[in-house]
């Protein structure tokens, strides 16, 4: 596991680099970037375009971090795409219309309530998975259906649109230049606020995974849940924490997306959970559990973001874009499996004459 390997003390810098799994993804990312830059230097590195990529990474990076936590413990969270829609809608609903007889509330309270709701849904998932032994696939699939249905029911299908200039919109649409009133900030100023939030969240989750007892226990539960339990780990609590974090991050992303779009709409975020899982997997997370890192999740999201944006810049048809992204996912996983001790022996078999 890279988590362990990168901690290795007595080894040369190069040896450490070789074992550092994310380096592969990073190299791929740089090559991709160079390729698109070479093809369209005029568009690809413009601050405005880079901001688009960063927003993409912010959305899927955040969701992928949640998935990584859940997947390390051997679970899966299929609800996040629908949760985006649900949390976006309730945020807008609370700010614009108010709930029942309660009048609309301020931006901050509405966001806090939404994040709490997301976390509670995550705890709900975790509780079903741990206490009732319901497969995570099933319980989160239930929410997948319910959350989007509720979102549509609340809005009766109509999006809840913010007026332009609503203070809430800064969260998703703003960048550092606008936030601090800089002028002509260039690339640095064009960094979206959502991307900064992602870096903040990533740092916190990184610290949890690598510098707290909880992080060790998360990997332990993923590695062998019975051995972890017999070592005194409260395995239920660890798993519930991971689902809760995934729910929280889905809600946070939902709020940011609602702000970005200027509306709470039940149609947002369709199939985002699968994209987030793909990002996690491209970043080296094993669906078998026990393996995965925050950095990997972000790099995985970055690969997908750069690919997707680059293909738009190159004017590829959107149908072909999906085909290529699917291929990238498969290639990434096959490469990683082989790198980790699979072998190319089967090729020899195919290409050699029978003995």
């Amino acid at each position, binding site marked *: 596991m890279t988590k362990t390997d990168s901690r*290795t003390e007595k080894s040369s810098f190069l040896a450490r680099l070789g074992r550092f799994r994310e380096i592969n993804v990073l190299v791929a990312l740089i090559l991709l970037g160079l390729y698109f830059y070479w093809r369209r230097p005029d568009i690809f590195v413009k601050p405005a375009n880079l901001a688009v990529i960063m927003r993409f990474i912010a959305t899927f990076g955040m969701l992928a971090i949640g998935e990584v936590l859940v997947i390390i413990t051997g679970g899966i969270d299929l609800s996040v795409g629908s949760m985006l829609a649900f949390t976006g809608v309730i945020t807008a609903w609370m700010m614009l219309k108010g709930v029942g007889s309660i009048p609309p509330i301020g931006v901050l309270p509405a966001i806090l309530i939404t994040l709490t709701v997301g976390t509670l849904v995550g705890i709900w998932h975790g509780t079903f998975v741990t206490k009732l032994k319901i497969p995570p696939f099933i319980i989160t699939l239930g929410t997948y259906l319910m959350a989007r249905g509720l979102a549509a029911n609340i809005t009766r299908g109509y999006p809840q649109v913010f007026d332009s200039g609503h203070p809430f919109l800064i969260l998703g649409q703003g960048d550092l230049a606008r936030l601090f009133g800089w002028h002509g900030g260039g690339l640095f100023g064009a960094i979206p606020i959502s991307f900064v939030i992602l870096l903040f969240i990533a740092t916190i989750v990184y610290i949890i995974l690598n510098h*707290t007892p909880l992080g060790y226990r998360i990997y332990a539960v993923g*590695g*062998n849940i019975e*051995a972890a*339990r*017999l*070592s005194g*780990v409260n395995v239920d609590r660890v798993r519930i924490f991971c689902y809760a974090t995934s729910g929280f991050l889905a809600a946070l992303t939902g709020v940011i997306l609602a702000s970005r779009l200027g509306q709470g709409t039940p149609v947002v975020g369709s199939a985002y959970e699968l994209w987030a899982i793909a990002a996690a997997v491209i970043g080296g997370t094993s669906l078998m559990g026990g393996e995965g890192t925050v950095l990997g999740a972000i790099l995985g999201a970055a690969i997908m973001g750069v690919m997707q944006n680059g293909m738009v810049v190159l004017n590829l048809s959107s149908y072909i874009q999906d085909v290529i992204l699917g291929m990238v996912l498969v290639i990434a996983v096959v490469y990683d499996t082989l790198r980790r001790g699979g072998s190319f022996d089967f090729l020899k078999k195919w290409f050699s004459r029978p*003995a």
Partner: protein
Amino acid sequence: MSEQNLILRVEGISKAFPGVQALSNVDLELAAGEVLALVGENGAGKSTLMKILSGAYRKDTGRIFVGGQEVEITGPRHAQQLGIAIIYQEFNLAPNLSAAANIFMAREPRRPGLGRLFVDRRQMEQEAQKLLDRIGARIPASTLVRNLSVAERQMVEIAKALAVDARVIIMDEPTSALGEDEVEKLFEVIRTLKQQGIGVIFITHRLEEVFRIADRIVVLRDGARVGSMPIQEATPEKVIQLMVGREVGDLFHKQKAEIGPPLLEVRGLTRRDVVENVSFTLRRGEILGFAGLVGAGRTETVRMIFGADPKDAGDILIDGKPVTIESPRDALAAGIGFVPEDRSNHGLILRLSVLENIALPSLDQHTRLRVWLDRMGLVKTAQEFVNKLNIRIAQLQQKAMFLSGGNQQKTVVAKWLALRPRILIMDEPTRGIDVGAKAEIHALMSRLAQDGVGIIMVSSELPEILGMSDRILVMSEGRVAAILDREEATQELIMAYASGEKVDGQIVSPAPAPTTS
């Protein structure tokens, strides 16, 4: 041994893994109808050699001859085609299929004509029954495997090997999960195989069994063959000396420790149909041995004490005060450590490093402000116990899966010692580990007892029980059959209680009488 008789010959096999020369220049011969015992410490290369023969690994150099023909084994299927079958400690059987379906898995007999699409179940069961009868296993072929005992599953595995015309059957620690009478049944099967001209390679840690069943002994040490002799020329002392390369004194011997006041009291521990009304007291500095046949409820009892499984009734007292233990976490808090029977599935997280494994139970003791992990402190503690227990690793970051059985077991012990427990429960602490590591674990247990730790040791090896225990609790069919003092205990007496022949001081015979307690 004439050349024609050899069904398997191995010449100069070598195999290296990163950082380890697992085998160097090993020779091996096996004649038809011969039972060859392959012995050696863990890490000596037995398993590697067997995996090469069964096609799981490829050799680096060397030659393999099957029936006089040189062969290059390319994979498990190929090995099977060559007539080499291996029976692993963990069985490869589908529990929800019948014995017959397992025996003919992927080679099920078909009906004629269009019926080829369907399995001819009757024929399959008849054929399977013939194979089972051939080895003297009294199992109906239609029985579901999940309803079979461990020993019976082994027979199914053997029948499966015969179904593909195996001429060489390799058994990796076949007796480690068997009770005494089941071992005898297995040996009968092996004798039957022998008469039919099948060569058996038998890997075991129990020397006593080697002398009961083997025709010849081959000893491996550090990847090299260090001895081969007919059983008539071998003695246990000679074999052990070859295995370890040094003289071994008294293997099992507890040093004197001061036995203190009662530490752990268990009263009326019960789980329906498994454990009934188990009561005993463990004192400071005492090693209490748990003896009994497989299935007597020893593991179940200690798992309940540790909170790993729920109990229906019973009280646990520590220092005379009742404690509630409903989960392993509670047990930890009460100062109880538990070295489980199945170290690779329950004791360790194989994918994590030695450091992380040792740290896991004591993470909370190594934090600043209960949140931030003190990694330097963890490393220091882990290194301290790695040194103390003489765990042989290149670095703390080495993954547990790459350690030998003995070093894995020492790692499990280390993770509990790092917590400084007052009570240590050890379930089969030396099963499947080499003689050297075994002696080290025994010495360690002695030292712990001298430090005032109370130890419960479940063991199926009577010499270990007799050598290490201050008192011996014998279980039979879920109950305490007797608690014996070290002085009065003998192998015969323990077996008499364990098998239910003797109950509460009186010999029961011939039919088992109802217990008096």
